[in-house]
């Protein structure tokens, strides 16, 4: 990941960034067209993401609006009329009488929002700190990497609980409902930045001693320009790979945190919260409350993971 053949180095560096990106794109696209796995997982991811984005248009009910719910609809099996109300639902209803299909769409929205935001947060923070650490070295490096150690010390669960507690203490009461989601983003993002920072730092350490960086420094470019224009493009591939896999991890981390009771609130459930609720009905025969959200989560995480896998194989030329 760190050493690229010198010839490739010179080649990519001699081209302006825009052409480099275009070349990368077409390379990717070519490989993409040749891989059925990649195409299928991309299609599934896209389908799920789109249906989450357009949930209000697709869903038959709005499960987040408590006044629209009828408790008597609770535990209706899929495509079977409810004994009291006579209503029927495609994937059945959960313990509160929410339509499982609609709830999954809305829940996926929250899961994806949390996942994307957390990864974005981690990527930005990780790249920034990794570049700083790698480029400047010295006490900045020590400080950042020791902070990373502290960060690693706390599993994401503990980080989430810590942040949750603090956030609860400082957010005004009327905003608490929305707080949970931001806390999740912050918690998952914070526990994730370290790996980006480490990769970026490692790559930077190697890159900064290369001739082209020395040359850029000699002609008087500012460190920030060197980092952003010269070093960053060279480390984007590993970052992209890790980010994709992190997205899947973040979605699962959200589910785990919900299991431990630090996740999205039950009135606005994410996929993870739905699974936590559903697992209580595993033995009692109401399988649909667990099964459909779990399958959705599996499909989502799996397709994103496979995409990440494929990306890694493609973007890591040594494995070709």
């Amino acid at each position: 990941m760190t050493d690229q053949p010198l010839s490739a180095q010179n080649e990519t560096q001699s081209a302006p960034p825009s052409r480099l990106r275009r070349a990368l794109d077409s390379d990717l696209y070519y490989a993409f067209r040749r891989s059925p796995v990649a195409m299928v997982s991309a299609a599934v991811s896209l389908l799920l993401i789109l249906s989450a984005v357009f949930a209000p248009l697709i869903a038959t009910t709005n499960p987040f609006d408590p006044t629209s719910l009828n408790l008597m609809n609770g535990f209706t099996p899929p495509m079977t009329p409810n004994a009291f109300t006579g209503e029927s639902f495609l994937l059945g209803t959960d313990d509160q009488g929410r339509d499982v299909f609609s709830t999954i769409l809305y829940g996926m929205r929250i899961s994806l929002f949390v996942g994307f935001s957390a990864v974005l947060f981690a990527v930005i923070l990780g790249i920034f700190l990794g570049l700083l650490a790698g480029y400047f070295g010295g006490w900045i490096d020590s400080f950042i990497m020791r902070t990373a150690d502290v960060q690693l010390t706390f599993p994401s669960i503990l980080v989430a609980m810590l942040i949750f507690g603090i956030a609860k203490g400082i957010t005004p009461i009327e905003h608490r409902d929305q707080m949970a989601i931001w806390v999740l983003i912050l918690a998952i993002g914070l526990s994730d930045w370290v790996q980006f920072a480490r990769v970026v730092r490692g790559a930077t350490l190697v890159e900064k001693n290369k001739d082209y960086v020395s040359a850029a420094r000699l002609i008087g470019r500012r460190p920030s320009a060197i980092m952003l224009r010269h070093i960053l493009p060279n480390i984007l591939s590993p970052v992209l790979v890790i980010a994709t896999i992190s997205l899947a991890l973040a979605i699962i981390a959200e589910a785990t945190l919900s299991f431990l009771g630090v996740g999205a609130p039950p009135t606005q459930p994410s996929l993870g919260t739905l699974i936590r609720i559903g697992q209580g009905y595993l033995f009692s025969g109401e399988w649909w409350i667990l099964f459909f959200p779990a399958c959705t989560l599996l499909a989502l995480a799996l397709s994103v993971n496979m995409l990440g896998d494929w990306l890694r194989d493609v973007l890591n030329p040594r494995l070709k």
Partner: protein
Amino acid sequence: MKKTSHILAVAALLASTVVANAETLKWARAGDALTLDPHSQNEGPSHTMRHQMYEPLIIRDTSGAFVPTLATDWAPKADNPNVWVFNLRQGVKFHDGADFTAEDVVFSFERAKQPNSDMKELIGSITAVRAVGDHTVEIETDGPNPILPSNLTNLFMMDKGWTEANNTVNVQDFEGGEITFATTNVNGTGAYRLVSREPDVKTVMVRNEEYWGRNDFPMEVSEIVYTPIQNAATRVAALLSGEINFLQDMPVQDLARVDGADGLTVKQAPQNRVIFFGMNQGANDLEADNVDGKNPLADVRVRKAMSMAINRDAIRQVVMRGQSQPAGMIAPPFVNGWTAAMDGESSTDLEGAKALMAEAGYGDGFSIRLDCPNDRYINDEAICQAAVGMLGQIGITVNLDAIPKAQHFPKITDSKTDFYMLGWGVPTYDSEYIFNFLVHGRESDIGTWNGTGFNNADINAKIKSLASNTDLDARNADIAAIWRVVQDEQLYIPIHHQVLNWGMSEGVGIEVDPEDQPRVKYFTMN
């Protein structure tokens, strides 16, 4: 550590000798006893554990009636209404062989009155306990106390000699983190002896063959292995797979599955516990609402409307799967002062509720936060969630904050919540207990769980007078009058009385106890 290995060796020995009719009760529930010290921690699961090994003078049966245990009979003294006389059972021995005498009773009461004792509030009226001969004690109170026996059903008797010899006369300072000999060792008169104990992991007990009632009770369980299992699904799985044969704290959704499983059965009974919502009517303005300068909950019409919006039947039907009884008052049916009429006073009437809201000037509704525990009562979070939807129907936007009990309860006791869920059980079977904690205005040592801000001098005085009123009819009239005010003020929104469910193998025979206190000596094993 060394002690445990000794005990384990003894256990192994015992296990090999009683193979003859070895019936093991493999018992699980959600949580563990906090300590074994009989007078520390007045708490349900802790008492459950102690009841197997220690005994009080009196216990209650499943109908709530008194059953003579270490006392055979008791009555107020003819010439002095301030004194109760208890005759003790003869021929009772502690696990170490020592005789149970009046001296031990006197000692146990003195111990239970120590500052560190968690039982002292229950016997606060007692001024002296005297031994009159070997098997009679007199208990003197600071005034006539007609309901004294009610307060003694969890007050366990210890052996004076053993306690002194092991230097454990002082009640463990639980909060200060003290450990004493009595925290981890037991010498009771009970039907089971302690073999080993790892808190939160496993506790093992064996049958006491020398028990005074060895032939009076079935006592068919020869060994008890008690394991707390927190995760509900795991708990049910353990019962379904036969790893345990007796389960408390059953999730209601799994009743049918367990009952339908081969060799398993579920037994149920109404529990002595009522679930309700409290509303802060006392504040001038609420912290967690969207109405400025006014407190909508201060208006009794709003409180009534909220109660009318709750569809208790739907909650019973769907959330509780029939395992609850809709409530109209915040006293369980076991309690003196409960009436069927008052318990039927809540009804669902959306139109009426909307009209009341409009009349009170809140036709457009308002928004408020509901604080709710998520690990305390049966389906607590789901009930709150259902209430959110129901209150939404009359325009009240409710934001739900469901959190663990450790964080929920301080909100109530510290007045940090305006709208909250709470459940209440009544170990004394008398309304006074409810009034003291939930109706009397909040002071340092009374009304501590009254988060409503309700504080009425007349009512307070009436509640205080209940303690020493010997005229039971007059006392009951006062109780009824207080309840009338509580009902008319809609001080609380009652939801339901919980129903208890115990899951077990078909071979296990036991009736469900309304206080959730199984006593293994009554168990039969086939």
